[in-house]
Every structure is written in C-alpha cells, then in structure tokens.
C-alpha cells in the first residue's frame, strides 16, 4: 500500500528531522513492560511491517489482513522515483499522509526519527538492482526548464499570449503542447511532443499542428546520497508545421541539451541548456538556457510549490514566476500556472500565460479501497 507521491521532494535529512522527534524510544518503553523486543530495523520489519509488506518487501503474504494490495517494494521502477521524504512521511503519517490507503497506520507516535530513517534505508534495500537514479533528485517539474529526472508522464502545456503591439490590433495566440514521456530502462527516457496552435493569421484565425518533437534523455549522473542529477539528451523537431503561417520552422532541427538539478537547503535548483541546430543552414541557430528556483510550502505530496524561472533565448530573456499544486493526495496529477514576462525587448515581446497539467500515469491517483 505504500506508494508515494512522486513529485514532492525533500532532502533525506529534512525527512529525518521532520518526523518522530517527540516519539518515545521503543527500547525504553518496552523495558518497563517486558516481552520480546525487536531491536534492529530488520527485526522490527519482520515483526511488524512484514505482516502486510512481507519479509522481502514484495507485499505478497500468505494471509493478508488488509483489503488493498501492498506495493511491491522490490520493483525498482516503481519505488526508486520516490524521494526519501515521501517514504518517511508515509511511515510517520500512514497512508493518508501521502494520499494512499488508510490501512497503512502512522508510526510517528511510536518510532523515533532515527528509526523512521532506518526504515527508509531498509526499504530502499528491497530494490536489488544498481544504478536506478535516486528519487531524492526527482524534483517538481518547472513549466519551461527541462527536468533532469526521467519520467513516465503525460503533459498538456498551454500557452496563451495577447499581443500588445499596435500593428497587431487585438490578437490572442493560443498554443497547446501535448507531451508523452516514457522511461526506458533505469536511466533513459523518450518523449514525443505535438504542438497545436490557434493564431490570428492575416484577417482570420488559423489552427494547425506545429513541428512534431521527439527526444531521448539519459541521466548520466545521479547521486544515491545527495539530491543531484545531470542528464543529457537530444531532441529533434520535424517540419510538420506550416512554415508560411508561422506554425513551424520548415526544417528538421536537432537540439542537444543538458539538464541538471540539485537542492540548496529547502530550495530546488534546476537548470537546462540547449542548442537548436537546423539542418537548413538558412535558418538561424538558437541558444536557449533556463534556470528554475523553487520550494514546497509543505511536505505533503499535493503541496503548493512556488518557483521562478529565468528563460533565455539568444539575446532575449524572460522571467517566469509560477505556482504548482498536486491535484490528488499522491501528487500523481498536478497543475502549474505561470506568467512568462519579457525582461528584454519589452516593447516587442508580450507576456505569455503558461502552465501545465501533468499526469504520472504509473502512479495511483488516490488510495485504492
């Protein structure tokens, strides 16, 4: 039952300090009562947790005493994307603390924070395969900055801008990019994105698809102890959009990129840089860079996250303040909204409203009953 919201992240040390601070020490409690006392985390797991989660963490027990099917902790692709903080929260608060089954009880009144931390470490050990990136580097997705952690997600990213230039009269441009992302193996991911546009074109509105984008990404560096990750990728856009209406670039464009993330205190810091290399040499190259800084307002998977991005393209620069919210208890459905405000060439550029609706389709949306 212990499936954790995926996109809210705290450092392991933050998780350790948050829960169980006032809990009595079990050894002290038990010594006054008598009876056998499990003393190590492994013994506690066997005595208590294995009833539902099994000794090996698979959740497969002979005589289940609960109605939900526990999560298989040996399945690395499901468990590794979760940050330690979510595991600790589930142990401390029980299933509802991370939007999951209330059949998982809370242990915050009976375990110390060190013991909860020990359980998190013990549970991490159920995944026996090496080189899975740690979920501690699985940060909330910014709106524009590419996320370094590989994901299984479906995204809708709307963009709405209203022209302020006198020559454009009153023009509202609407874009919507649909993106499908899927992990490959332990560290890689591919994605496919299709943009749709509805623009003012000459005297009427025009709707069309834009340039189809496909990309691969690989997490080349992911620390297992600290929340740091660096990924490289290559994106290619295909000229499926109509060039003369402004819906596409009219050429294949290769876009190598790098994405990285870390935490500074409680702040997420994510950066992303890429170069657009058109096959048609008449089309200009572009250099893009994005930096995001943000933080959660609570430890719950469906918390509000506040952030701001700097988005640069060649000599242009935008600042994009944004707010993100998990829409379900697990955080598997989330939405973000921001405003992309031009910092340079303000007379020629307009504010765009940007955001996303995100669905982590392998994660449960809520507790199963």
């Amino acid at each position, binding site marked *: 039952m212990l499936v954790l919201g995926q996109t809210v992240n705290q450092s392991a040390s933050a998780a350790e300090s948050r829960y169980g601070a006032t809990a009595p020490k079990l050894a002290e409690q038990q010594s006054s009562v008598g009876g056998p006392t499990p003393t190590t985390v492994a013994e506690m797991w066997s005595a208590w947790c294995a009833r539902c989660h099994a000794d090996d963490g698979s959740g497969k027990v002979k005589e289940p005493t609960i109605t939900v099917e526990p999560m298989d902790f040996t399945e690395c692709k499901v468990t590794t994307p979760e940050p330690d903080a979510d595991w600790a929260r589930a142990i401390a608060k029980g299933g509802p603390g991370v939007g999951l089954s209330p059949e*998982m009880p809370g242990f915050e009144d009976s375990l110390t924070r060190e013991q909860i931390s020990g359980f998190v470490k013990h549970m991490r050990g159920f995944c026996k395969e090496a080189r899975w990136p740690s979920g501690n580097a699985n940060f909330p997705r910014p709106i524009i900055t590419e996320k370094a952690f590989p994901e299984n997600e479906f995204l809708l990213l709307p963009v709405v801008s209203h022209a302020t230039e006198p020559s454009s009269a009153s023009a509202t441009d609407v874009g919507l990019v649909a993106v499908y992302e899927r992990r490959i193996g332990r560290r890689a991911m591919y994605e496919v994105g299709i943009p749709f546009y509805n623009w003012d074109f000459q005297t009427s509105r025009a709707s069309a698809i834009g340039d189809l984008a496909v990309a691969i990404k690989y997490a080349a560096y992911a620390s297992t102890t600290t929340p740091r990750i660096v990924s490289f990728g290559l994106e290619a856009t295909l000229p499926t959009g109509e060039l003369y209406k402004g819906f596409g670039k009219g050429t294949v464009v290769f876009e190598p990129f790098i994405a990285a993330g870390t935490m500074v205190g409680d702040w997420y810091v994510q950066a992303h840089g890429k170069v657009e290399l058109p096959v048609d040499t008449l089309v200009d190259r572009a250099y893009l860079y994005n930096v995001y800084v943000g933080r959660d307002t609570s430890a719950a998977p469906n918390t509000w996250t506040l952030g701001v991005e700097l988005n640069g393209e060649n000599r242009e620069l935008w600042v994009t303040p944004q707010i993100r919210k998990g829409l379900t208890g697990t955080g598997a459905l989330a939405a973000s909204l921001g405003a992309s405000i031009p910092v340079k060439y303000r007379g020629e550029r307009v504010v765009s409203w940007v955001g996303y609706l995100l669905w982590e389709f392998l994660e449960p949306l809520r507790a199963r009953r």
Partner: protein
Amino acid sequence: MGRLFALGILGTIACAALASAAFAQAGSVTGTITTTAKSLAPVRVTIDQKVCGAELADQAVVVDAQGRLANAVVVLTGVKPFDSLTLAQGKRAAAAEPTITNDKCAFAPRVQIARPNANVKTTSKDPILHTTNAQLENGRTLFNVALPIAGLTITKPIGNAGNVRLSCNTHPWMRGWLVVTADAAVVTGADGRFSIDNVPPGTYELRFWHEALKSAPQRITVAAGKPTDLTVQMK
C-alpha cells in the same frame, strides 16, 4: 469585606442546598435490553495465536441465557451535560477521555461512549503490532495509529462527525465502537441492564444503539423520586 465573605458563604450553601433538593426530586431511568438474536460463534484465530489464543468470542452480539443484550447503548436525549448526572456504576459510563485498550487481540471495552470532540487514548497490553484504525460510519478515516509494543499510549481527537468504528489492520476480526453523543448515555452490561440516575422530572426521548441490532426510539416520562423502568427488545 467580612460581610461580603459571609454573603458568599451563605450563597454557596444555599445553592448547594437547592441543588441537593433538585437531585432529591430527580427520578431515574432503568431497564433491560433484550433480543431474540443469539450470540455468534467464536472467531477462529490463525494469526499471533500465542497472544490472541486459538479462538476468540465474537462480541458483535453478546447475549446471555435470558436473552439480555450487552454492549447496547441507551441515550437519554435532552439532558445536557450528562456530567451533571450520576451514571450508575457497573455500567460503562462516558469518560472525558475514553481509553481504548488492545487486550488479547480485542478492543476493550468493545463499546464505549465518547463526548463530541473528545480526545481518545489508545493503548495496548499485547507485545505484537496492533493498529487502532478509527473510521466514521461513512468510511472516512479519522486516524490509524500503530501500536507496535505493549505499554504505549497515543492520544487522538475524534471530532464531532458521528460514531467511530474501530478496527485493527493486523487482526481483521477486531472491532470496537465509540458512540459519540453529548446526551446522557450508558452502555448495557453483561446482564443487559442500564441505569441513568438523577434525571430531572420530564418527558424525554430514549434512543437505542447497537452495532448489529436496532430498536425504535421511545418517549418516556420521568417522575420525581422514582425510577422509570422499561424493557426494550432490539432486533
């Protein structure tokens, strides 16, 4: 100052005398809850037998040989707060902070009364993992806390959204109930009897609750200085 003090003493004595007089004029409501239902077969235990035993009585319906029903709740509406009443000993009366004890893989007591917004203590005498999973009757979870060792006591609020059903996620047969009411209320004992004393004369509604059986409310009239006795069958 001395006169004021004397007046205060006199006033206190007068109030106490009036209160005593009022209680002296009060009546009481007593009775027996019966049923034609039979006690249930014991639950066969296959988990933690060293602590729980090989089988446990199913306390969902506890009836004696005369058909008298235990663990039924009798609520006298319209008398608040019930602290002003003397709830008869021998029956489990409402406590300010009810304690739920996990004892030999059963909640003890099985049924108890709690005030709205009370803090409830849960503890365990068993050296095995129990959970106290408190849910409203609509299934909403109030809390679910782990009690992995004997002797640990955890306090949680229950709010005021209705009766609370208790279960244990490691021992599925375990059930308990907190009947949440601000009215005078008692739980019947093993002999099916109940008694609510020091009830001011008047007309009241008496309501009955049981986890598996039902009975319609009754209007009763309490007279000064004598008990109002009744027998109620729950089906």
